[in-house]
C-alpha cells in the first residue's frame, strides 16, 4: 500500500490513463488530480480497517 507521502497523483495519472486509453483534456487535468488525491485519502479509511480474511465481497452471483 502506497503511503500518501509517496503517492504522486500526477505521476499516477500519466502512467495509468494510457492503460485505460483515457485522454485527459488539459482543462480537466487539475480537477482529475485533485480527485485522485481525494480518492487516495478516502481509500485509506477503507484500507486501514482490519477485516477478517473470511469476509466475502458484498455482491453475490447466482449461477
Amino acid at each position: 500500500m502506497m503511503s500518501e507521502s509517496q503517492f504522486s497523483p500526477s505521476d499516477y495519472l500519466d502512467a495509468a490513463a494510457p492503460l485505460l486509453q483515457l485522454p485527459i483534456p488539459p482543462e480537466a487535468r487539475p480537477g482529475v488530480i485533485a480527485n485522485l488525491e481525494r480518492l487516495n485519502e478516502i481509500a485509506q479509511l477503507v484500507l486501514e480497517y482490519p477485516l477478517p480474511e473470511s469476509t466475502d465481497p458484498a455482491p453475490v452471483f447466482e449461477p
Partner: protein
Amino acid sequence: MSFFDDRGSDASAIAASIQRQEVSATRILTAVIAAIDADDADLNCFTTRLTDTARAEAAAIDRAQAENQILGDLAGVPFAVKDLFDISGIPTLAGSKINRENPPATTDATAVARLRQAGAVLVGALNMDEYAYGFTTENHHYGATRNPRDRDRIAGGSSGGSAAAVAAGLVPLALGTDTNGSVRVPAALCGIFGLKPTYGRISRAGVTLFASSFDHVGLFARSVRDTALAFDLLQGADPRDPVCTTRVPEPTRPPLAPDIAGLRIATAAGYFQQGGQPEVFQAVQTVASALGATQTVTIPEAARARAAAYLITASEGSSQHLARLQTRPQDFDPATRDRFLAGALIPAPWYVRAQRFRRWYRDRLRDIFQTCDILLAPTTPWPATLIGQESITIDGNEILIRPNLGRFTQPLSFVGLPIISVPLHRPGHLPLGVQLIAAPYQEAKLLRVAAYLEQQGVVSVAAA
C-alpha cells in the same frame, strides 16, 4: 376552477375525484399543463414534455370512465419521471448532452409501465445531475433546477427536477433514483416525502444505471398515503432486472394505520449527530420527541461506510461510462467529468476491499435491527443552499457543499436499507428532512411511523 388548481392535492385525492366523476382526467391534465406552462420556464424541472401523449392518455381514461370500465388506482393522475427512466418513443437523456444522440427508447422502464398500467398519465421527464453523479441538479447542459420554496436555492439532487416538480405542485407524484441519497436529499431540501425502498425492491429495468451496487428506484409524493399507494403499485419481481427481488410483494395498504405502538425507535448517534448545522439535529430531536424515542444507537464505522460507498460509486460509475470517457470527455458536464475520469483509475483492490467492508458493515446493521425497528437521522447536513454556492461553514470549518450533502444518506444506502425522508413542518423556514430508517423489507413500518407523524402535524408538505 378545478380543486387541482390550488396545486395542493395529492394523487389519492385526484384519483378519488376522478373515480367519483367530480372531475375528468382531461380537466386535471389541463390544469397541470397550465401550471407547468406558467412556472417551469423559471423552475426548470422538465427536460422533455409529453403534452400530446398525455392528452391522449387522459382522454382514454375519460372514455373508459364513460364506458363504466374499472379504472386503475391512479387513473388520471399526472406524474413525471427523472430523465433516466426509459420512456417509449423518446431518447433517455440522463442529464447528458451525449445521450441526445441515442435512439428513442422502445419500451417503458418497468416502473414507468407499472404506474401507467394503474392509469397514471405521464407528462414528462425531469432534470437531474448528469448521469446522476451529484447532489445539486446544477446541470451544465440543462441548467439548474430552482427550489420552489426559495427560487434562488438548489433543489438538491440528483433527482432535483422530480422533487421540485412535486414540491411546486406541477405533478403530485414523481419517480427518481437514489444511489447515495439522490431521492432523499432533494426531497428534504424541497420539503416533500421521498421514499427509497430496500435495494432491489423496485425494478430498475429500463433505468440508466449509475452505480449498480447502490442504484435504487424511489419516489416523491406530497402525502404518506400517496407514497404507500405508489410503492405498492411499483413492487414486484421483474426478470429484466437481475437485482430485483423475487420476494412476494407485501402491500402496505390497507390499512396504513398511523400507529406506532410496539415499535422500538431510536436516534442514530455519533456520526449522525455531527457535521451539520444545529437545526438539522433539532429537526431529528423534534421527530424523536413526537415519537417518544429516547434511546440512541451508534452505527459503527459510518464514516468508513461513506468512504467505501464513495469508492464503489466512483469506480462503478466510471466503468459504466468508460467508452464515453475514452472518446468524448469534452462532452461531459465539467462537474461530473473530473470525478468520472479519476474514478476510472481506481485500483481494483480498493474496489474489492470496499465491497468486503460493505458485507461487514451490513452485518453490523443487521445486529442493530435485532433490537430496534426504526432509526432516526438527519437527511441533509443543512437546508438548501444558494445556486452556485460552493462551500458552507460547519463547526467553524469551511467545507464543500457538493461532496458533503450526502453525509447522512450515503452510509445507509450503502447497505440498501429502506428509508423515507419526511418533511418537517416548519412554516417560515427552509425545508428540512428527517430520515426514518428500517431493516430491509420493512417499508410498512416506515410508512406507519410517517403516517403517525403526518397525523400529528409534525411533518407536512407546504402548500405549493
